């Protein structure tokens, strides 16, 4: 009996060992499979980029309309294929445990608006209102991987856009929880689209699944997006989940834990011109009214909102009679019955005290509407969804212009304010120090930056960089620093600058090496980020945006 027992135990142990071994082999081959997929996709990506790049060039040559149509199809298919490949790379990286997360400071609000701006062009031709709601308690800066965070938001918002033909899409971002060192952010993307039947709600998070088999044919996509989003979110300590009912549309939620950032942005001073000002907001979309009401109230202004554009004029008149006149009026362009242009025209042809009120247009397609807005008598022009800072900047600017003595006889502006002009002015105000020893790279980077409207000071080595910066630190907003330079290299120069107490100036390394160790060396030396050569315009501008705009746009 005992012998039988012993024998059985031994056999069991042997079985266990075999199973363990098999498991290990299976895991290893699974990793190898992921690796292989990842490498292959990477190899496909390079020629794909060439295909897309050359179709770009081809489109610039002389082609017949039919040829243009063919080339466009090649290009669009190329882009679609590339995005599927990118998804596969991501998924296999996740599965083989190779997905890295960065820890760099970023402004979550800015990121949310960026994502909206990215997706917005696709909604312009549909009766869809794209809204963005930012929690008042949202931290101005967090630390984490902005690219991954953005990837999930973009994916969810793009999905919402795909499946919504009419109504509204709202991205809201709020602080969900916080601990000593971390903050949990939650984004909710609500749409009024086709919705997802209850039975399908679970499976859409599995790879290669979409809610209906013909969904892929109609809407495109690899069916990998949501499963990647969920995996990324979980790796960030959060999750992606959804609620939906077939007729009311869907809401997708995305949560993630991020670190608190020790780097604080410049204090956001509210322009004094804004405080206490009465502002009338006219928009047929009530969600947007609610959002604007909150933003303006929080900034110390006194907003009144109406969703009935035909009442705008009488509200303004009544306020004037009560001796509590409005100082500014904002109106949506696209409204039923009486649109924004008509509202502006009504106001401009009213009695003299009323007709001079500054007007700001809110529009979905700024490029399309700008000229007409100017004609209709608007003083300013903002594209929706409106970012808080941009809104305040413009209100401040317009009110100041309006207060200028001697100017009040002529309210119609010489030139309409657009976000574009405000941003351009900011660009010119941004001064960059470029340290690079190679004359070719030096001049190339200088040309790129100058063409884009930035002010550039060029130096040829680390010593010069330190001296030039320290002689006039107020004169620079950002430093691009080559790593390999004679005399004093980029790392040493950065350490010198940081050592003298200049901790705030962003320093971006430029290096030919793309290795993680090099990156670590840059960070250890006190640099904020790095770009790899060959230098690309897009990367350079993205870095500038990342490190400078959020601080100068106060």
């Amino acid at each position, binding site marked *: 009996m005992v012998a039988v027992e012993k024998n059985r135990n031994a056999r069991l142990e042997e079985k266990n060992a075999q199973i363990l071994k098999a498991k290990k082999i299976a895991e290893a081959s699974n990793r190898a499979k992921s690796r292989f997929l990842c490498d292959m996709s990477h190899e496909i990506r390079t020629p794909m980029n060439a295909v897309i790049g050359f179709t770009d*060039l081809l489109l610039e040559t002389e082609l017949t309309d039919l040829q243009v149509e063919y080339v466009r199809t090649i290009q669009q298919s190329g882009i679609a294929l590339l995005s599927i490949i990118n998804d596969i790379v991501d998924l296999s990286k996740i599965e083989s445990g190779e997905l890295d997360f960065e820890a760099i400071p970023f402004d979550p609000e800015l990121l949310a608006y960026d994502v909206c701006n990215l997706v917005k062009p696709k909604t312009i031709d549909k009766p869809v209102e794209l809204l963005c709601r930012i929690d008042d308690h949202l931290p101005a800066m967090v630390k984490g991987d902005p690219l991954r965070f953005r990837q999930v938001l973009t994916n969810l918002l793009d999905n919402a856009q795909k499946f919504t033909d009419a109504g509204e899409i709202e991205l809201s971002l709020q602080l969900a929880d916080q601990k000593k060192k971390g903050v949990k952010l939650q984004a909710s993307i609500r749409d009024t689209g086709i919705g997802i039947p209850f039975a399908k709600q679970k499976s859409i998070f599995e790879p290669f699944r979409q809610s209906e088999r013909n969904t892929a044919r109609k809407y495109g996509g690899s069916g990998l997006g949501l499963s990647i989003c969920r995996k990324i979110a979980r790796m960030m300590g959060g999750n992606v989940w959804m609620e939906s009912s077939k007729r009311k549309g869907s809401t997708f939620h995305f949560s993630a834990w991020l670190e608190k950032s020790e780097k604080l942005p410049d204090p956001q001073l509210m322009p004094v011109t804004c405080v206490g000002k009465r502002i009338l907001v006219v928009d047929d979309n009530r969600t947007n009214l609610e959002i604007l009401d909150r933003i303006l109230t929080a900034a110390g202004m006194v907003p009144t909102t109406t969703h009935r554009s035909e009442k705008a004029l009488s509200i303004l008149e009544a306020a004037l009679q009560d001796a509590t006149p409005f100082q500014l009026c904002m109106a949506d362009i696209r409204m039923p019955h009486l649109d924004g242009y008509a509202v502006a025209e009504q106001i401009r042809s009213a009695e003299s005290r009323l007709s001079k009120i500054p007007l700001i247009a809110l529009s979905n397609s700024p490029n399309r509407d700008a000229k007409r807005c100017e004609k209709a008598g608007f003083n300013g022009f903002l594209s929706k969804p409106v970012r808080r800072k941009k809104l305040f900047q413009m209100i401040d600017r317009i009110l100041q212009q309006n207060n200028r003595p001697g100017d009040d006889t002529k309210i119609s502006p010489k030139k309409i304010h657009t976000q574009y002009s405000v941003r351009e002015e900011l660009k010119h105000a941004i001064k960059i120090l470029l340290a690079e020893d*190679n*004359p*070719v*790279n030096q*001049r*190339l980077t200088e040309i790129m930056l100058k*063409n884009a409207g930035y002010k550039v000071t060029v130096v040829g080595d680390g010593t010069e960089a330190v001296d030039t910066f320290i002689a006039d630190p107020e004169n620079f907003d950002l430093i691009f620093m080559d790593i390999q330079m004679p005399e004093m290299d980029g790392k040493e120069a950065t350490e010198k600058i940081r050592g003298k107490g200049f901790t705030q100036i962003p320093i971006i390394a430029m290096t030919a090496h793309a290795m993680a160790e090099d990156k670590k060396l840059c960070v250890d030396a006190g640099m904020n980020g790095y770009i790899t050569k060959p230098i*690309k*315009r897009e990367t350079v501008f993205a870095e500038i945006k990342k490190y400078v705009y959020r601080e100068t746009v106060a």
Partner: protein
Amino acid sequence: MNIQRWGKKIGISEKEYRELLMLFLESGSADIALLRKALESGNAQQVARCAHTLNGAAGNLGLDQIHEKAKRIESAANLNSLGTVSEDLFSLKKLFDEISETLEEGP
């Protein structure tokens, strides 16, 4: 070689791209001279350094052939094997001549 198109590829005008090519020929020829000297004295480290400079600048200007050749020299020198370098150096020189011919043709 279409200068206008190459300039467009990295987002600058033809005139600017011409200027950069001139700069590249100038500084690049100096680098090649240094490289040759280092090769003659068997200084692999210096060879690698010169090749690195060349490959960086060429990469930024989208001069892929020069970029590739310089990169090959750099990696060979880093492995201390200078045997193939003079051959690559010769083709580098030829590529330089091609650029200078294109530039002389004018716009």
